[in-house]
């Protein structure tokens, strides 16, 4: 009897040990180390995402929508750009070559278009800089009747996911610049002023604009 009890205890101990041995443990997988390489070569072809097949989907706007921003005055947080003029933003030239874009300094910067009168915004098209594959950080587009954007502000686009520009956290997606520009739905926001901000880009800390087009109709 004593022997059988002892056998039972030993069997239980062995079983417990076996269970412990089978407890899951974190798998340690050795990860590949970086490979040393020579000086990177200048990129001959831009490292672009696979281009979208077919044409850009149409943005449906109300009949009678017109380009409102052409030739309209532009102001900016950087009032004296080192390169280019603020007037380039609404001059109709979106070619993107040297001498057609304005360069604003580092840190978050904005440009603001005065449409002259309140308008119902149907769409905004933006060309920051499209002669190289790059993404502008924290792009925010807002509409307001207040030139200081302190009251009555409607945000129509915001991809500042961590609110680093302090204009609110956005959920829109970042995008790679290309010749088509970024076409945004104005969502019928009403205002006299359209303000666009950005916070540097994937190539440098600067902010650029070739052209901005604001489409809509006078607000009734």
């Amino acid at each position, binding site marked *: 009897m004593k022997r059988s009890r002892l056998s039972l205890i030993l069997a239980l101990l062995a079983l417990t040990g076996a269970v412990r041995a089978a407890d899951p443990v974190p798998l340690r997988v*050795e990860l590949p180390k970086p490979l040393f390489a020579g000086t990177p070569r200048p990129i001959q072809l831009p490292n672009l995402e696979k281009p979208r097949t077919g044409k850009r989907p149409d943005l449906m706007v109300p009949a009678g929508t017109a380009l409102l921003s052409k030739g309209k005055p532009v102001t900016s947080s950087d009032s004296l750009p080192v*390169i280019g003029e603020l007037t380039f933003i609404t001059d109709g030239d979106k070619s993107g070559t040297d001498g057609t874009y304005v360069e604003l300094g580092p840190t978050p910067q904005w440009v603001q278009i005065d449409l002259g009168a309140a308008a119902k915004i149907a769409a905004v098209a933006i060309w920051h800089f499209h002669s190289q594959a790059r993404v502008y950080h924290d792009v925010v587009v807002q509409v307001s009747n207040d030139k200081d954007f302190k009251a009555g502000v409607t945000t129509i686009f915001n991809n500042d996911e961590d609110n680093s520009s302090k204009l609110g956290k956005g959920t829109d997606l970042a995008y790679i610049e290309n010749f088509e520009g970024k076409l945004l739905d104005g969502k019928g926001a009403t205002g006299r002023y359209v303000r666009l901000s950005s916070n540097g880009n994937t*190539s*440098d800390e600067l902010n650029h604009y070739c052209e901005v087009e604001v489409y809509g109709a006078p607000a009734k």
Partner: protein
Amino acid sequence: MPSPVSRWLPLALVALVALWLRTHDLASRPMHADEANQALKTGELLEHGRYAFDPHDHHGPTLYYATLPIAWLRGETTLAALSETTVRLVPALAGTLGVILLFLLARSLGHWPALTAAALMAVAPASVYYSRYFIQETLLVSCTLATFVCAQRWWQTGLTRWAVAAGICIGLMQATKASAPLFLVAALIAVLLTVRSRPVTRRPRRDLIAALITALAVAALFYSSFGTHFSGLRDAIGTYTAVSTRAATGSGHEKPWWYYLGFFGWHREGGLLWQQLAFSTLAFCGVLVAFATPQKILRCAALYTALIVAALSLAPYKTPWHTVHLVPGFAFLAAAALAALPLRLFAFATAGLVVALQYKQTQLAAFLRPVDARNPYAYVHSSPDVLKIRALAETALARAPTGPIRIISEEYWPIPWYLRALPPTSVGYWSTPSTSSDGALIIASTTQAVTLRPLLLGRYTESYLGLRPGFLLVIFTPKPAAP
């Protein structure tokens, strides 16, 4: 006779300006891929005492070994603790020393022309930019100038110790970069063709043999990792196969023959003006002075500079940091041109104007636009976005301590430098994605991201960062689990 203070104070001021331009705010520019690569190798040497010369993609060992005393003095003993400032202090101090060495070399032109030459090198955009850059070029320039100064002293005094000192400097040149013989051969040709006198020593052969033995011993010491890696000696010779192939084919760095001269011309790019016309015009006038007057050292400097320009320009392989080799010669010749002006006041005013113009370019290149793609000195430079990667990785590991953080890209340098302090078991590098590519954070090139997306099992938000101009990275951050 001016007092020693009034004689040496201007040189001290030039050296101080050179030092400030080379050391001010050293850590602010993101690490270039080459800097990061070499800084990691330095970290390995610092932390584990391990170094083995790599004859394929790396230059000589002096840069890494020279970093050690600075790191120790700054209390940095591990790769994680090693900082951008520490590694960049090596070329910064070498660059400052180079300015003083050029003064010593140019003293035969006279005291103030030598000072002018030093001042022109102190503010030259290429010299300043690459003295703030953790690569071998500035170290090589300074070792070359030190060789010339020692050789000049030996020639003039006949003392064997100057020959031995020149040998040490030649050994350091060779241990810095395999291109060292180019500068020695150019100098030898220039001396043979322009200098007719003989050195004052009666036993030049003995001194030359002493210099040669010293040079070989010093180079061997470094390439063998101080006697711990003797195959480094074989690799130091074998590296010339890779070097000659690279120089002959260009290896993706092909440029037109006038590329280096273009740095000293005038061009606009994207609204930014890059020019050194006043400096190069003065240097060209110096060439005319060299052949219009009987100054042998000036002819020697002109011929040496012309040979270096020709050799670098004829090779298809060109990178902008080689322009630093042209600066001492140009500064020497420019100072000689100013010294030849009959009106001393006019010469001083011209020197001041050219130094001011050069400083403006340096300010633009090294301080205002150091990573701008339009800056000709910022060659395939990392984007400022790379500075955000460490914080992203740390946040990811705080969320999921076991990681892994996956870098999946054809090119990823300088990311390993920014992730050097993370546990190596939590970061991995791949060139293409595999079937199990999920992670606490995934950083993929846009090309690899296309292949990666269908392979991911988890749900991620995507955002973009730049590795360098035109090369984008997609950042995959896991979405928080639904409550």
